[in-house]
């Protein structure tokens, strides 16, 4: 009796391990491949007889040097950081009060409005970028990072308002009411009590907005044409490829550096984003 049971458990364990391993490799392989390629000599990369999984020639830092010294990569990182920080600030200024109002002040019509705001998150750039390019041109923001600052909150604000609304709803009402009795106005209670105890929620919104800014591609591609004004997600695919010449080493280095650190940070907050995505579908 014991032997078949053990065998069955072993088989189940093996299947489980196989599934997890297969999907992990599928997901992570491109990033592993970026990392390997980053340190490979071009002559090693461009030889079909070489085993691509190992270093047939000694590793090199040449691609990293080229990336930072001979391309605008560092500049693009800087641009992304700058736009990211401003967009995060704008998002907080708009979404914090809006989220609080939806959570506490607006009652029935606020609920409808909240769903409406959330739905605008589903309107994709693809639908809006054509008229937007014209508007940006008329505003004289063509080719400027400010065009991104103006437009990016359009996808950070709706989702962040929604996320923050959830956070604020979870705060016991008693705390704000105590603050109101203790001598603050409703708004004062929001500033002095609600915001300080929502630090983790605010941090979530900061990370989420920043990730979205880093990922954005369509607007930046549409509005900007000068290399020095690009963000990293557009600069790398458009300007590190000259005609048909691909600098694979530098390209992969650029992708890896801009992808993995933010992903690690994001990982700490992922459960909260999911809570936002799933609205009320789970109890």
């Amino acid at each position, binding site marked *: 009796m014991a032997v078949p049971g053990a065998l069955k458990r072993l088989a189940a364990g093996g299947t489980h391990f196989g599934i997890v391993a297969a999907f992990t490799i599928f997901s992570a392989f491109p990033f592993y491949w970026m990392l390997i390629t980053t340190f490979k000599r071009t002559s090693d990369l461009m030889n079909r007889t070489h085993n691509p999984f190992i270093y047939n020639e000694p590793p090199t830092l040449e691609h990293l040097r080229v990336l930072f010294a001979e391309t605008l990569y560092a500049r693009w990182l800087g641009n992304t950081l700058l736009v990211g920080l401003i967009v995060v600030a704008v998002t907080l200024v708009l979404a914090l009060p809006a989220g609080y109002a939806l959570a506490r002040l607006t009652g029935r019509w606020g609920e409808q409005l909240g769903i409406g705001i959330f739905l605008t998150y589903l309107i994709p750039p693809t639908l809006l970028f054509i008229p937007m390019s014209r508007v940006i041109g008329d505003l004289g923001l063509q080719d400027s990072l400010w065009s991104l600052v103006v437009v990016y909150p359009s996808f950070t604000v709706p989702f962040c308002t929604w996320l923050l609304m959830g956070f604020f709803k979870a705060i016991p009402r*008693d705390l704000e*009411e*105590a*603050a109101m*009795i203790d*001598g603050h106005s409703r708004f004062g209670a929001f500033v002095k009590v609600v915001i300080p105890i929502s630090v983790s929620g605010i941090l979530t919104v900061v990370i989420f907005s920043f990730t979205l800014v880093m990922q954005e591609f369509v607007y930046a591609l549409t509005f900007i044409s000068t290399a020095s004004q690009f963000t990293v997600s557009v600069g790398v695919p458009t300007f590190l490829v000259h005609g048909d010449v691909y600098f694979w080493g530098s390209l992969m280095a650029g992708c890896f550096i801009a992808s993995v650190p933010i992903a690690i940070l994001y990982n700490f907050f992922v459960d909260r984003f999911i809570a936002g995505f799933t609205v009320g579908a789970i109890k």
Partner: protein
Amino acid sequence: MDSVDLSTKEGEFLVLLGPSGCGKTTLLRMIAGLERPTAGEILIGGRVVNELAPRARKIAMVFQSYALYPHMSVYKNIAFPLKAQGVPKATIPQKVEWAASLFGIEKLLQRKPRQLSGGERQRVALARAVVREPSVFLLDEPLSNLDAKLRATARDELQQFQRRIGITTLYVTHDQIEAMGLGDRIAVMQGGKVRQIGTPSEVYDEPADTFVAGFLGSPPMNVVEAPDALIGFRPEHFLPREAHESPAGLTALPFRITRVEYLGADRLIYGVLEGKFQGAKVIARLPSTVMAPVEVGRRYEFAVKEKDLKFFATATGLRTPPRPL
């Protein structure tokens, strides 16, 4: 909430007592300014405060959850209302010290709320409420988060403290033991209405209607139906005939016992009346000093003193004058 008319005396400890959903917390929140009444006036210190924000009403409130600010130390929690009201900076530390010493929490000032026990949290909440010397003190079931043992001592401390500082206090609870033990007066509420207001002995001994009669006391007053009235008597007044000191002025009620619960200090006797109130289910509460034997299934001669019988109108449930049975 429906046509509540209630007024307090200076320095009084008034308890709002009622089952959950009776509107007692809503009433308290209206007084605090957290909810707006649709009609009527609220006066504090002779002034109509309907249009005033909570912070302008000179009240303090202790919440059921205590609502301590989790991101602030105990000191900052207590100082918070002072800062919010623009009390001069120099006087804040001494006021906080005073409030803390009132509740013996001087040693906890640097801790965060999450590092405190339930009893300590409650004291901090009280200190935070009292520090600003309000003219009215509102308490919303402040003891319900404490365990049973702590609750008894907290009740005692609360009452001593209230007597000492003499602030008018409104206390909401659904626990009749708290209400009887703490209140100078008790307002019994139900369905958004005040059913009766009076001292603990008034509401217990002379209930204004069948709701109050049935809500107070454990087990509650027995109410049996006579042809033209409802008749109530407390279980502890419903004793074997021989247990009464004198046979004069007694109303006899033959009683068939169906169940006996032994509670140590008392015995609860469940059964049905026979004779005039045939079939009415009632309960008797026999103190352990009454040695009379009681056996399940047998019929005994029980009796109630005439003065302990309360009469209520059948239709309205309101109290009516006593009359001979």
